[in-house]
């Protein structure tokens, strides 16, 4: 017997996109809306909240970015991108109409089927609000399919808070229970934003039904341990605590190896992992 060689789709060749608008979310995070160029419009570019795309920039390289838009609002892809280095610096130089390459989506995304009908607690830290926005919008657009929606968001300071105006608006909404906090310096926003770590917002999270609740966490590496400990206090089942992780990635297809954690690839088995996975894989958080 010999192996049968079946080639797959060309996973590594980006399609071309065009920027249609952009705005600054924080001093170093910019929001981009992109759409496929004419010749790629026909492609079915569906995705799930929590998945990510590889964006390519001529001459500078390729990097993974979470999709910040929701598949319920089709046709447009949104990203919140922080300026940290070579590629992201160049992305910040782009103007409306400029092109970039895109391939994906990759990653497992949030297990939406499993979340249907459940109460959802979302905990975001810093840039973690980017992927979680996709989930948030998805739930809001399908509000009747989910139970309670609790959203806790912590940032360094009000200037670092992504989508701040949107969140302020949502504070008025009865669709979700939203709490915002900053590490320090909420002067001027005292009525909307608390001061202190994101863990400190758990005091507002009450009457949780542990059997019927799913928690989703995304933020900087240091945040997870503390937040998960808080969540565990509500007796949530470990597989119902979801963490969205970031690792170095060069392919998105489980081949380059960089994102490996034990035998799991962040780009295939993640970036959304359950806390049960975390217990099994020491390096996870």
């Amino acid at each position, binding site marked *: 017997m010999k192996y049968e060689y079946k080639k797959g789709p060309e996973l590594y060749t980006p399609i071309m996109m065009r920027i249609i608008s952009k705005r600054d979310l924080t001093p170093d995070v910019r929001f981009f809306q992109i759409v496929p160029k004419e010749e790629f419009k026909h492609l079915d570019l569906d995705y799930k909240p929590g998945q990510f795309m590889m964006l390519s920039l001529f*001459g*500078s390289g390729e990097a993974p970015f979470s999709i910040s838009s929701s598949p319920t609002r089709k046709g447009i892809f949104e990203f919140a991108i922080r300026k940290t280095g*070579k590629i992201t*610096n*160049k992305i910040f*130089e782009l103007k409306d109409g400029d092109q970039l390459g895109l391939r994906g989506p990759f990653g497992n995304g949030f297990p939406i089927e499993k979340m249907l009908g459940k109460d959802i607690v979302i905990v975001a830290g810093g840039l973690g609000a980017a992927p979680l926005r996709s989930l948030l919008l998805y739930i809001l657009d399908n509000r009747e399919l989910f139970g309670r929606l609790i959203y806790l968001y912590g940032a360094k300071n009000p200037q670092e808070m992504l989508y701040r105006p949107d969140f302020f608006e949502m504070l008025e909404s009865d669709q979700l229970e939203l709490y915002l906090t900053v590490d320090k310096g909420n002067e001027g926003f005292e009525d909307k934003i608390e001061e202190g770590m994101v863990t400190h917002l758990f005091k507002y999270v009450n009457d949780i039904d542990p059997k019927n609740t799913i928690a989703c966490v995304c933020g900087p590496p240091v945040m997870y341990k503390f937040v998960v400990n808080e969540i565990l206090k509500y007796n949530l089942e470990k597989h119902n605590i979801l963490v969205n992780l970031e690792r170095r990635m060069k392919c998105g297809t489980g081949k380059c190896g960089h994102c490996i954690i034990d035998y799991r690839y962040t780009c295939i088995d993640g970036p959304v992992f359950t806390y049960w996975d975390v217990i099994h894989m020491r390096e996870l958080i």
Partner: protein
Amino acid sequence: MKKKPTLGIYGFTGCAGCQLSLLDCEDELIDLFSAADIKVFYEAMSNNDDEALVDIALVEGSINTNKQLDELKEIREKAKVLVAFGSCANHGCVQAMALGDGKWEQRFKQVYGDAKFTVAIPREAQPIHKFVKVDAFIPGCPPSKIQMLRAITQLLFGNKPTYTNSPVCLECKFRENECLLNDGKLCLGPLTMGGCTAPCPTHNTPCIGCWGIIEEANHIAELKLLKEKGFKTEEIIRRFRMFGGSEIVEKIEKLLEVAK
């Protein structure tokens, strides 16, 4: 058409090999001259504009006189991006192999006796980052054509060149060489910044470390290993120092302690 980026190539003390290796890009030279607006390149042209502000300054050579130091500072003022070009600029190269031993004046006397100089006040060789902010670097003694051209292209494009932080061993294995360390040779590959395509081990001659020390270099482990193989501590340290420049100086004490 977009304005071409301006480029200045400046040389201080060294063998002039880094500039020469630019001239050695026979096939790409014409492209280089058309990709950039070259304002200063003494080794290749006579219509140099010393005063010009430049987008990118490639600085070759170590600083060995006070006059050079002043010039370096001027270049820093004039350049948007200052690049340490080659080993001399990056860490001092061979002229800095005895850096920090406190015997420079003695050596100077050995060579010149009591001769007095009007031309400039000499000083011990130092890499340029000791005096000015360096934005990017191109390693090598001299830089390899391929890595140098890639880096310059990225710089002209407005990017900082990125290197994988890998030692010479990576490319040595790419070229399928038997490891010389296992053959009892004093190879510095694991301590040395990659990018040269490992020409030396490929010719059965050990790497002497001419591209400078890689960030992750484990000198202590290599020292222990080489001692086990029968090399004397002094010889090993001398080898570490040959291209170790200013970086190795900080490690010497620890190494001598381990060697004991």
